[in-house]
């Protein structure tokens, strides 16, 4: 099997916020220690491979660097020089539901906007529009501005649109954390569907239960480094020991 993603020597260094100067006044006042750079290495020399069709879980405590890793894989952040990332196939990041939703627009308009941002063509959106509306159970509310929706309604709509995204590699960041258990079950059945379709899935979550249920392999990130990688049971045991 060919790997879907290969990561070699991946590091990411951020400049610390105190070095960033917001206003002109602050900039001028701090002008003299301009060359003092405080940096923080959020990811330190990561090496791993994700196989095609694999359900790959990433776990780690807050601030361990897992979100940064996801953002680098999604192309949002650039890694440090010397890092090598090879991705085979299109990658669809789902770091948040409803990216680009505009509360002033109607549900219908937001479906078109959000789906376009996620990469669907107009004819694809038209073809799946009915399905989106039915899945979100919002048949009577599509002409209503989203600012009048309850938060549950917007999440349902956003999720229904996200479901339409079709890419061989999916990046998912705790999308499951939102919504009630019915909604979570819907997410889980979507994961099952992805698995059946043979997609490669990368999931970042805190939930050990969903990790065990879906993952083929789990990677534990601790203090910016890969602490363990492999069988979900073993890696999760290690994770709980550390916590």
């Amino acid at each position: 099997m060919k790997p879907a993603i290969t990561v070699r020597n991946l590091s990411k260094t951020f400049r610390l916020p105190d070095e960033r100067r917001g206003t002109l006044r602050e900039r001028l006042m701090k002008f003299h220690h301009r060359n003092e750079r405080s940096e923080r290495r959020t990811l330190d020399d990561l090496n791993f491979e994700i196989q095609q069709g694999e359900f790959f879980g990433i776990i780690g405590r807050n601030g361990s660097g897992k979100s940064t890793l996801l953002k680098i894989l999604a192309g949002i952040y650039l890694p440090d020089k010397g890092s090598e990332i090879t991705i085979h196939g299109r990658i669809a990041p789902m770091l948040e539901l409803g990216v680009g939703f505009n509360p002033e627009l109607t549900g219908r308009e937001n479906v078109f906007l959000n789906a376009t941002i996620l990469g669907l063509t107009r004819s694809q959106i038209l073809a799946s529009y009915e399905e989106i509306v039915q899945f979100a159970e919002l048949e009577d509310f599509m002409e209503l501005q989203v600012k009048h929706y309850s938060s549950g309604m917007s999440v349902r709509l956003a999720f229904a649109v996200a479901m339409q995204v079709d890419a061989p590699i999916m990046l998912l960041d705790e999308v499951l954390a939102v919504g009630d258990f019915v909604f979570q079950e819907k997410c889980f059945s979507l994961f099952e569907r992805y698995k059946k379709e043979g997609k490669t899935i990368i999931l970042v979550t805190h939930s050990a239960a969903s990790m065990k249920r879906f993952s083929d392999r789990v990677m534990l990130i601790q203090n910016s480094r890969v602490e363990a990688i492999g069988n979900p049971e073993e890696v999760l045991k290690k994770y709980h020991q550390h916590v």
Partner: protein
Amino acid sequence: MAADFNYSWRLFKTLTWTNFKMRYYGSILGYIWSLLKPLALFGVLYIVFTVVMKQKAAHYGLFLLLGIILWEFFVQGSTAGMNSFIGNYQMIRKLYLPRIILVAAAVSSAFIGLFFNLLVFLVFALLDGISWSPRMLWFFPLLIAFYFLVLGIGLILSMVVVKVRDMLSLWEVVTQLGFWFTPVMYPMSNVPEKFRFYEFLNPMSGILEYSRYLLIGLGSLTKPGYCYVMVAGVMVLFAGIAVFKWKEAEMVEDL
């Protein structure tokens, strides 16, 4: 590669249209409201100059109206471009998209506004007895150079403002001063000869002066001047793209 381009193009169209709709949203009279600002300014200036200062030049009304409409696009377009990067931070931080499209869409939706305002100008021009001339076709390349200029400025400002938030207020002051240092209300021929060259260095001077010459027949146009404006528009756009590409990745982290 082709897929990327198609995606960018779809995104550009959707975002431009969404931006345009948002500007006039929540009111059927939305577009009329957006006209009100330039028209009110026009009305006041027109009264001051014709009634109080006894300006009697032919087509002075059209002269002023065109100047204000074009200047309005300069201000709206560059400001929208400046805000588009920091204003879309949620999108930028949650997904990869060609971010340059965000700026282009913001400037373009202002450009659609300019297009509608020019239709209003057309109505006034017909009422004022302006007739068709092939010379007017030269206005369209100028319009494109104008768009490039504003987009280039918008791209640069969109990066600067991430680091220097004061730019938001500063740019307001710059455009306000620019209104007086650019021949919006007066023709270039009123500028003392020794300053005229320097004023023409500002490409906005040429854009205003030549637009009036081409559409109304007032003032004058020189070939080198016209070429300068065209080249300046393209150069500023390239500079804008270069700055944006250079700083983009860094600014995403600083948002």
